[in-house]
């Protein structure tokens, strides 16, 4: 056997070199299938099924009855739907700016790299990793009118006991406080990652030029953070639109409907009143709002890129 008949390397068994442009790995379909089947079955199919359900009257026992646009016209005339959207607007006004500003301030602090800043980072992020049940119950206890820690420390400033969760004026504020504590972690981490991306020669050059901390914040840090800032604001807006678990655990939407949120109302319509069609229609309206916000955010981000 002469050496000329043997190729320098044995050809790979599946017939092509790895960087051959014409190869087709049909086994790829098998690899993707394990993920795709549950994904399409449980993430995508229900969305389309939900559109259909939104046009029907349907309860757990019984079969669907097509009602056309009835659910949607009913939703527009439903006072509680509007209450939900009004409340979510207030939640947004309270939660989004607080999370953004506090998250940025905490990230700026940790980014200075002081001693123990790793510990500070962990402490700021920790509430983000526990369940809504933990957040809810801990804050119900902290915000207790008579024995709560918050009112205890507030009383030093001569403020009377505030019924954070048990009065219609305050319940939404009480839930928002807990939500800010819970949600801050993500904003904080995103800001921190962006701050660490700022090239160090840029800040050093500014230092050599005698830029003070304010000038550095104004002319280097904030412009650099702009895309992340818009991302944090929209992500937080979306998660505020979806606010449910903490409302459920802390106040049950009450007292009255004072801390009710749209998803909480969807839950009530579906589970308590057993109107699955109507609940789907309301969820669909909410989805349109969330989708518009997401697209707006994508648009802003791509403008900057």
């Amino acid at each position, binding site marked *: 056997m002469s050496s000329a008949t043997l190729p320098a390397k044995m050809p790979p068994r599946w017939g092509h070199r790895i960087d051959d442009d014409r190869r087709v790995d049909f086994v790829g379909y098998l690899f993707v299938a394990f993920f795709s089947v549950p994904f399409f079955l449980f*993430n995508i199919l229900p969305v389309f*099924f939900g559109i259909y359900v939104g046009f029907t009257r349907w309860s757990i026992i019984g079969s669907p009855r097509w009602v056309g646009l009835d659910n949607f016209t009913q939703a527009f005339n439903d006072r509680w739907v509007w209450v939900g959207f009004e409340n979510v607007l207030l939640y947004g006004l309270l939660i989004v700016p607080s999370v953004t500003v506090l998250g940025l301030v905490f990230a700026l602090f940790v980014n200075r790299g002081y001693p123990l800043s790793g510990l500070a980072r*962990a402490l*700021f992020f920790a509430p983000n990793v526990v369940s809504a*049940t933990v957040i809810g119950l801990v804050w119900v206890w902290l915000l207790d009118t008579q024995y709560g820690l918050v009112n*205890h420390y507030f009383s030093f400033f001569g403020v009377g006991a505030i019924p954070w969760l048990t009065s219609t004026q305050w319940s939404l504020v009480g839930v928002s406080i807990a939500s800010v504590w819970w949600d801050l972690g993500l904003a904080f981490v995103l800001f921190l990652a962006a701050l660490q991306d700022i090239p160090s020669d840029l800040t050093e050059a500014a230092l050599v030029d005698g830029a003070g901390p304010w000038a550095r914040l104004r002319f280097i840090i904030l412009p650099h953070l702009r895309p992340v800032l818009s991302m944090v604001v929209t992500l937080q807006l979306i998660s505020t639109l979806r606010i449910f678990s903490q409302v459920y655990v802390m106040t*049950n939407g009450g007292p009255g409907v004072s801390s009710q949120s749209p998803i909480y109302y969807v839950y009530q319509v579906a589970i308590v009143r057993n109107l699955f069609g109507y609940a789907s229609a309301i969820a669909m309206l909410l989805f349109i709002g969330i989708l518009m916000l997401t*697209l707006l955010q994508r648009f802003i981000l791509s403008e900057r890129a």
Partner: protein
Amino acid sequence: MNFLPNRLRNWLDERRMTAIDLPIWLIGMAVAFAWFAPFVWMVSTSLKYPSDVMTQDIEWLPHRVTLNNYIKVFDYPIVRWGLNSIIQAVTSTALSVLFGAMAGYALARLRFPGRDALFAIFLASLMIPTEVSIIPMLLGVIKLGWASSYQALILPTIGNVFSVYIFRQFFLSFPKEIEEAARVDGAGPLRLFFLIALPLARAPAIAATVILFTLNWNNFLWPLLVTFDESMKTLPVGIAAFTPVVGTHTQLEGFSVAMAAVTILSVPSLLLFFFLQRYFIQGISQGSLKQ
């Protein structure tokens, strides 16, 4: 800076801090500890006698300690809920990490028609909030007769795009030579993936596992909706009923028992987080920043 004592000044210099940095540092650290204080208060309350809880004086360290609240928690089916939570979180996480790794590998390294369109669909689906599909999904699950079952708790949580994404990112920058060499040695795609690629993908695997595990462990809305049976509840759903407030919740026990319950619930997530912080924080910022 002359007003500072020498030793303090040296200490600051060693850390490249100036006199202005000192108060900023002290205040910042105080805020960080205050941010964590609710957890300390939670544990402290859980160790108090119920009669010491509802008082005006604040005791960060209880003057007498009891484990009674933790024992009382077991009057409720908390062992069963815990078991459900473990089964649900472990199975969901294991399946979504494995399937995510396979899909991520295929999307990054294998070539087949429709690959990029599929990935685009995966990414676009991130814009759909779960709340939209949750009511129709519940209806479907009930009609299938799956209410209060493990398959209903587990199956809908498997298709998590985050895990595909994080593995795809990793395998995109995976050196070609390793695969090339293995192929030359005659390894088929399955062996290549399971024996070579997957064992090298430790970092994304750990990140995906810890993040998805906490996500599944803490999942609230779906288990709340789908478990009608008390014995099929998960920990977060079961313990949520411990809220001792006005409203429609039943007044079960006092705050001390409620705090013992949430301490049990939060310890796994908090421990996992403190030990694997790096993976958490990198994974989360990667997952949401670089889409």
